[in-house]
């Protein structure tokens, strides 16, 4: 039972960027030696600022991007080197929910075709059975089955996200990467979608990798949380623990900067204001990636790169030299 659904070890992914036609192309290292695991029925939240590599990590795990190094284990099977053909049976079991429900649905397909398409590709069920299943899925995600012949433009943003979720669920996956599934939605709709995702998870024992920048929502939905900065995983641990007792200086700053919907608490709170912005990922600082903005940086931090290590028990890990003492 305790075998993780997903386990990644030292995963790396970089992209070539061409800055000028005369220079050698540089490499943006989007994901740097990230290791983590996700258990059955568990949600791992991934937070970080734009450009920290959280979406790239999600896509690399699904092998949408070919990893440059490290290992991806899906239920114990090493899928890192798998070819497209070898991946095919696994694709069914690992799926993705996208951010923008306006861009991710083909406007020329009806809802029925959209939700049925994955099953058709995998040659599952007969045509009649598929139709029944599509209606079932629509009910599961809270859409009216009689809307099966409608087109995406007839639905609101929240309903479209429901269509996307139904499409994802069509193949009965075990692991879903949710890449900012609520960022494009209105506040009152966000909570509907989060509740739906939680309900489906409880019913089907799904594992989620939940990527978002809304820290409050991530805390709510996640069992464990990973914090990324410049392609490095800097801290990982139980959701409430990471929020209430952040260890890494970056996590501390991130948590204190998160807007809090409570005026008294917001006023009473001690904010850690970070100087400046994220450095260019083409030019990651030599030592600790966070050393240029860290309020507690020591000379040693500029020389040595910290590794993710046990800190504070109960599976908590952080990458900071100061914690090592």
């Amino acid at each position, binding site marked *: 039972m305790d075998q993780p659904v997903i386990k990644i070890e030292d995963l790396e992914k970089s992209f070539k960027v061409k800055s000028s036609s005369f220079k050698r192309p540089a490499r943006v290292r989007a994901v740097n030696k990230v290791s983590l695991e996700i258990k059955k029925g568990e949600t791992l939240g991934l937070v970080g*600022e*734009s450009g920290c590599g959280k979406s790239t990590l999600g896509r690399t795990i699904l092998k949408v991007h070919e990893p440059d190094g490290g290992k991806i284990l899906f239920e114990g099977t090493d899928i890192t080197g798998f070819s497209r053909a070898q991946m095919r049976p696994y694709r069914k079991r690992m799926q993705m929910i996208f951010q923008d429900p306006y861009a991710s649905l083909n406007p020329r397909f009806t809802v029925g075709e959209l939700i049925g398409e994955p099953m058709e590709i995998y040659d599952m069920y007969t045509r009649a059975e598929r139709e029944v299943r599509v209606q079932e899925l629509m009910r599961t995600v809270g859409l009216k089955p009689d809307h099966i012949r409608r087109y995406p433009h007839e639905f*609101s943003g*929240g*309903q479209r996200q429901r269509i996307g979720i139904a499409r994802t669920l069509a193949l009965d996956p075990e692991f879903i990467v949710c890449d900012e599934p609520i960022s494009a939605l*209105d*506040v*009152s*709709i*966000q*909570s*509907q979608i*989060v*509740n739906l995702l*939680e*309900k489906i998870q409880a019913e089907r024992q799904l594992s989620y990798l939940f990527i978002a*920048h809304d*820290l*409050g*929502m991530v*805390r*709510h939905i996640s069992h464990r949380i990973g914090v990324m900065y410049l392609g490095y995983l800097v801290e990982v641990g139980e*959701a*409430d623990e990471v929020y*209430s007792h952040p260890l890494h200086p970056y996590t501390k*700053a*991130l948590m*204190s*900067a*998160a*807007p*809090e*919907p*409570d*005026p*008294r*608490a*917001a*006023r009473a709170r001690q*904010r850690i*204001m*970070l100087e400046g*912005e*994220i450095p260019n990922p083409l030019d990651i600082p030599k030592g600790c990636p966070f050393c240029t903005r860290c309020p507690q940086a020591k000379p040693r931090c500029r020389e040595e790169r910290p590794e993710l290590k046990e800190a504070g028990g109960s599976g908590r890990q952080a990458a900071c030299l100061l914690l090592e003492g």
Partner: protein
Amino acid sequence: MGERLLTIRDLNIEFDTPQGVVKAVRDVNFHVDKGEILGIVGESGSGKTVSVMSCLGLLTDNEKIVRGEILFEGENLSSAGIRTEKERKRHEQFLNTIRGNKISMIFQDPMTYLNPVLTIGTQLTEGIMTHQKCSKKEAWDKSVELLRKVGIPGPERRMYQYPYEFSGGMRQRIVIAIALSCDPKLLIADEPTTALDVTVQAQILELIRERAKADNTSVIMITHDLGVVASLCERIIIMYGGKVAEEGLAEEIFYEAKHPYTQGLLGSVVKRRQAGDRREPLESIPGTPPDLLKINRGCPFMSRCPKAMKICKDYIPAVTPFSQTHSLSCWLYCKEQARELVERQKAEMGAGLG
């Protein structure tokens, strides 16, 4: 209570669309005091941006103010009632003396707001030279000072650079510098931090607060993020379906919310939890925001309201005050009036039949 700077009365804005007339803003009333930071919260299509844009005459051709007054320091900025081309031109000229001068604006996306082919220096001095009688040298010096005030290091050198040479947060600082360049009385910030990262967002909000307090500038902060208004705003207006649902001091809205929509909105954001009580489903508001083309006659929130009554369907609720600062528009809190209305209607029906 402070001195009034801006008063909006009975504002009604309509959009002409191919599908029909959209009543985007209906009978909106609010005011801003001098030196106050006001938050306007609402979802997309609630009319929050349009009602504030109209103050600056920034409506497109198919959008128009059909009724209402926008009083800014005693002068009416509303274009309602303007018929002839000559009047329209004169009004436009008048607005030009206000825009960017007494009232200025910070937009959501700094990259689309700044002109990519002009240097920061040119863009900063432009506004100052248009509105204030001063030489280019004076405007330049003032701009350098402004950049320093908004926290841009090495401003003398930065003046010669182009927008692409700045990061997102830095660009937003420049937009704020431009907005502050003529010492405005009122600063309108339309989702100024939505495009920014959390740590940068905190910096920018702090900057807005700091500048507003230093110069006693009033700020209208338009946002959908309750977290942003909680830390920044003294007073909050909640808009829904083109109408003001509830209005009050930050404490009154966050701790004594009365309108079912405000309550639902607060319930659907994650509150600070104690360790242990995790994994309760969030409260959520069923349904979706209304389609303003097909809005019902009564309360716009009715179709999603858990406490909706019969009267909500046909009648728009009156504004009920709770304290000097706190008021809302919901039939639940003015049952007396509701009963009267129903009685009167019954009597009329009876008379009609008889």
